[in-house]
C-alpha cells in the first residue's frame, strides 16, 4: 500500500496531463482546445504540489505557527505553482482573444476547417 501511495499522486498528474494532450489532439473546437491546454497545465500543478508535500506537515506560513514547532511543506514548489497559475491564466486569455479573432475572420472555430491561409 505504501509503495502505491509513494507514486500515485505523480501518476495522477501524468494522467491529467495525458488527458489534456488527447483532448488537444482530437479537438474540433478552438475554445475546447484552449480548455484542454488548461487541463494539461492542471497536471503540472498536481505534480508540483505532490513533489512538495511532506507527511503531517502544515502550510509554510508562520503568522500563527511557531517556527520549528511543526514540519512545513516545501514553499519553493508552491511559489512555482503560483507562477504556473498566473502564466496559465494569461496564456488562456491571450488564446481566447485569438479565437475571437479567428471566429470573426473565418466564421468557424473548427481547426480542421482552418486549413487554407487567407490574407
Amino acid at each position, binding site marked *: 500500500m505504501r509503495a502505491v*501511495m*509513494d*507514486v*500515485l*499522486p*505523480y*501518476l495522477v498528474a*501524468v494522467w491529467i*496531463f*495525458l488527458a489534456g*494532450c*488527447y483532448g488537444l*489532439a*482530437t479537438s474540433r473546437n478552438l475554445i475546447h482546445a484552449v480548455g484542454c491546454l488548461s487541463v494539461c497545465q492542471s497536471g503540472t500543478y498536481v505534480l508540483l504540489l*505532490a*513533489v*512538495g*508535500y*511532506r*507527511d503531517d506537515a502544515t*502550510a*509554510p*506560513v*508562520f*503568522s500563527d505557527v511557531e*517556527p520549528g514547532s511543526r*514540519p*512545513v*511543506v*516545501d*514553499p*519553493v*514548489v*508552491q*511559489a512555482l505553482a*503560483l*507562477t504556473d*497559475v*498566473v*502564466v496559465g491564466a*494569461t*496564456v488562456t*486569455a*491571450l488564446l*481566447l*482573444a*485569438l479565437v*475571437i*479573432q479567428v471566429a*470573426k475572420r473565418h466564421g468557424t472555430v473548427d481547426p480542421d476547417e482552418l486549413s487554407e491561409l487567407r490574407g
Partner: protein
Amino acid sequence: MSPRTRLGLVAFGLAGLAVLLVAACLRLPGFGGDSHPYGDRAVRESLARHTANTIASVNFDQRAFDTLGEMTILFAAVVGCVVLLRQTRDEHRARPRPADVAPPVRRYALIVLPIALVTGLYVIAHGQLSPGGGFQGGVVAATSLHLLYLGADYRALERVRPVGLYEVGDAVSASAYVVTGLAGLIGGTAFLANTLLPYGTFNTLSSGGTVPLLNAAIGMEVACAVVVLLARFLDQAVEIEEESGT
C-alpha cells in the same frame, strides 16, 4: 491526413509519452517524504528576513527577479489582448440597453461587492503575513468590481471602471516593481536584493523589507490587468457589433 490515421498517430505518441513519464515517476522521491533541501533553506532565509509567509518571501525576495519576468508575461499578455480585441474598421459600437436584473441577484451582488473588494485589498496587504498576496488579492479585487455588471448593468460598471485609468495603473505598477529593484542599485546593493529596508518586527504589516512593496505593486498590476482584460472581452460580447451586410 484522415482522422483515423491522426488518431492512431496520437495514440502512438501518447503511449510513448505515458511510458516515459511513468518510468520517470517511479524514480521520483516518494510522495510525502522528508527530504526537501530547497524548502528547508527557503524557510530559514524567509525567517531570517522576518517574512512570515515563506511563499511571499520566495516570490518577492529570493526569486524576485523571476517574478519580474512573470509580471512581464502578464503585462505582455494584456497588451496582446488589447491589440487583438480592438474595434476594427468593419465594426461599430452599440450602446447596450439597460437590462432587468432579478431583485435577489441585484441585492446579493450589491451586498457582496464591498465585502469582496475589502477582502481583495486585505489579501494584498497581508501578503507577507498570511496565505495570499498580490496575485491572489488582485484577482479578487478586480473581479469584485464586476459584480456591478451582474447586479446592475453594463453602464453602471463602465461608470466605476474607466478602462484608460486602469491601463495607466497597469503600466505604473509594473514600473513601480522595476523602480523598487533599481532602488537597490542606487542604495549600493544589487537589483531587487532585499537588503535596503529594515526587516521590521516579525509578523507585523511592515515586516519583510521590500517584500510588502513588491507585493503591493504586483497586487495593483494584477488588479488592473484583470480589469483591462475583462473589459476587452466584455466589449466584444456586449458593445462591439459587426456592420450588417459586410
